[in-house]
């Protein structure tokens, strides 16, 4: 049998199982909401008199709350089926499966999901950039009255220094946009120089403080690290904790020296230097292995979270939070039969 046929069968079996799951027990992938009426007393001011503002909010609830309410009173209106949330749930499941489908091969479903993610991300960053950076910082400083009255009533008034600084920032920003102009692109080099200079200044100081100096200090360890129990201080060192702590310190110091030797190219890696460099390579390999292991763990956790979503919220196969009434195990049993 050709591999493609095998995979068609695998996918067909999964689709059939999902189809069966939709028709048995409680079904799957439905979202419910709870109606909450809100109101607030608005005080009188120069423009409006006192009034009461009312509105309705719809909050997501567990399906079992809806079912219990329906059982008690079929005509209740507090809980309701939510088309919007249900469609959102199905879209989330579709896009999750569409992204996973790339593992088989590139396909239109994957490309659609990819395009949607890029489009949504770009739009979101645009909105965030406007409302969280330009409005409160730039417009809030340069047109404070307008922003204060129309958008952010609690925004504090800017100091003169802040206004001048924002004028400078606006000028730099406009100069940066000159990159897009057909002529005068060189003007954008000035703000780029400013950005590089400030970033380098910030990073050099912080790296010297936190990485070079602090990490060097942390490397100066005693090769024999006595561990004394607070309870048995009279009886001297605790043997095994002292051995382990000393061994850890020795490994640390040896590792630092050997790794530094590996990256020290002014001396040929022969003899003592060569052996030290070789030990340094081993330390580096162990470090890369640990990094790879942690990365795998992280990726598996993300995969588990998506599969949990598919099994819990979409397929209703598991129910760790007790959101539904029907026994999950019986639903799975009936699906398998």
């Amino acid at each position, binding site marked *: 049998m050709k*591999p493609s046929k095998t*995979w068609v069968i*695998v996918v067909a079996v999964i689709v059939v199982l999902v189809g069966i799951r939709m028709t048995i027990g409680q079904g799957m992938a439905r979202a419910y909401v709870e109606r909450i009426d809100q109101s607030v007393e608005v005080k009188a001011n120069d423009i409006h008199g006192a009034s009461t503002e009312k509105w309705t909010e719809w909050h997501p609830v567990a399906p079992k709350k809806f079912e219990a309410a329906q059982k008690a009173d079929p005509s209740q209106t507090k809980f309701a089926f939510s088309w919007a949330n249900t469609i959102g749930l199905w879209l989330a499941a579709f896009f999750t499966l569409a992204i996973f489908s790339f*593992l*088989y091969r590139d396909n239109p479903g994957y490309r659609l999901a990819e395009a949607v993610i890029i489009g949504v991300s770009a739009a*979101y*960053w645009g909105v*965030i*950039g406007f409302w*969280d*950076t330009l409005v*409160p*910082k730039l417009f809030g400083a340069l047109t404070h009255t307008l922003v204060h009255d129309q958008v*952010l*009533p*609690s*925004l*504090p008034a800017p100091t003169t220094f802040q206004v001048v600084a924002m004028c400078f920032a606006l000028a730099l920003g406009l100069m940066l946009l000159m990159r897009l102009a057909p002529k005068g692109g060189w003007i954008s080099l000035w703000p780029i120089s400013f950005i590089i200079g400030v970033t380098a200044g*910030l990073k050099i100081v*912080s*790296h010297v*403080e*936190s*990485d070079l100096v*602090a*990490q060097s*200090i*942390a490397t100066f360890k005693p090769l024999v690290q006595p561990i004394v129990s607070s309870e048995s201080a009279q009886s001297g060192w605790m043997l095994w904790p002292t051995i382990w702590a000393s061994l850890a310190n020795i490994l640390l110091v040896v590792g630092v020296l050997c790794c530094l030797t590996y990256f020290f190219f002014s001396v040929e890696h022969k003899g003592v230097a060569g052996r030290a460099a070789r030990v340094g390579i081993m330390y580096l390999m162990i*470090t890369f292995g*640990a*990094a790879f292991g*942690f*990365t*795998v*763990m*992280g*990726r*598996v*956790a*993300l*995969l*588990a*979270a*998506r*599969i*949990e979503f598919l*099994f*819990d919220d979409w397929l209703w*196969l*598991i*129910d*760790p*939070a*007790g959101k539904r009434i029907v026994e*999950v*195990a019986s639903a*799975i049993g009936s699906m398998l039969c």
Partner: protein
Amino acid sequence: MSKFITILEGLDRRWIFLAMAISVAGPILFIGITGKTLPETPTPTARAVYRAIEALSPGTPVLISFDFDPASGGELTPMATSLVHQCAARGLRMVFIALWPLGPQLIDETIKRVILADYPKLKEGVDYVNLGFQSGNESVMKVMLTDFAKAFPITKNGVAVGDVVALKGIQRVDNFPLLITISAGYPGAKEWIQYVISSSGGKIKMVTGCTGVQTPGLYPYYPVQLNGLLGAIKGAAEYESLVNSSLAPKDTSAAIPAKYLEAQRRMGPQLGAHLLMIALIILGNIAFFAQRNSKVRATS
């Protein structure tokens, strides 16, 4: 044997993807149906996080920075839940900030999941406050070192920080005895250490929960510059079990809510996936050495 090696050499990689999906999905189904989780023994780094929070007296302000977005939620949401759970149980004043744009929404979700659900007596603005997102990365941290209100002039709900009771006595970031960051990358735990912890002269302690990718890069800072570290989902599960065992009511046998077992539930799929990976590495090495031996035999 040679036939088996031939199959291994020509194995379609999609079978490995399917095996990985099954090894992750199987334990999720099992744990989801039975409710059983694997036992966890907290390591010193996870214990250090717990102790750093437990050492603070009730009413002490803590700065909690959500430096991640939903893409890392699978690893970091359980940490955020447990960290806020312990802080709320301890009665600390929680000041939430975010240096990632989607952080404020994740803060709101965590507040709803933990504080509003299990600690309804805690008041917004008094016991906790969400200051929202601030753009600027490291520059926000530098500004916080000199003037906290300048970095975060208003809360997420638009209230001036001068009117917020939870921020009473906070002029600079070093007025917080403890900084908790839940970090997925840049800006995150590393930048907090470089720009705030190093400049504060030891006034602030810092603990972090971070993604697996970040963890190896943060270990060198522990325990001098970083007082506690939750590395990836394993660190989250260890810390979660520690918090659950300390906060579980002694006189009742009430089940722990599912939201406080999220990380421990995800350790089952980790076991399945890691066993599969170990098996694949062994099989891959067998195939490699068998292929090399056959080539050596063919040339000789």
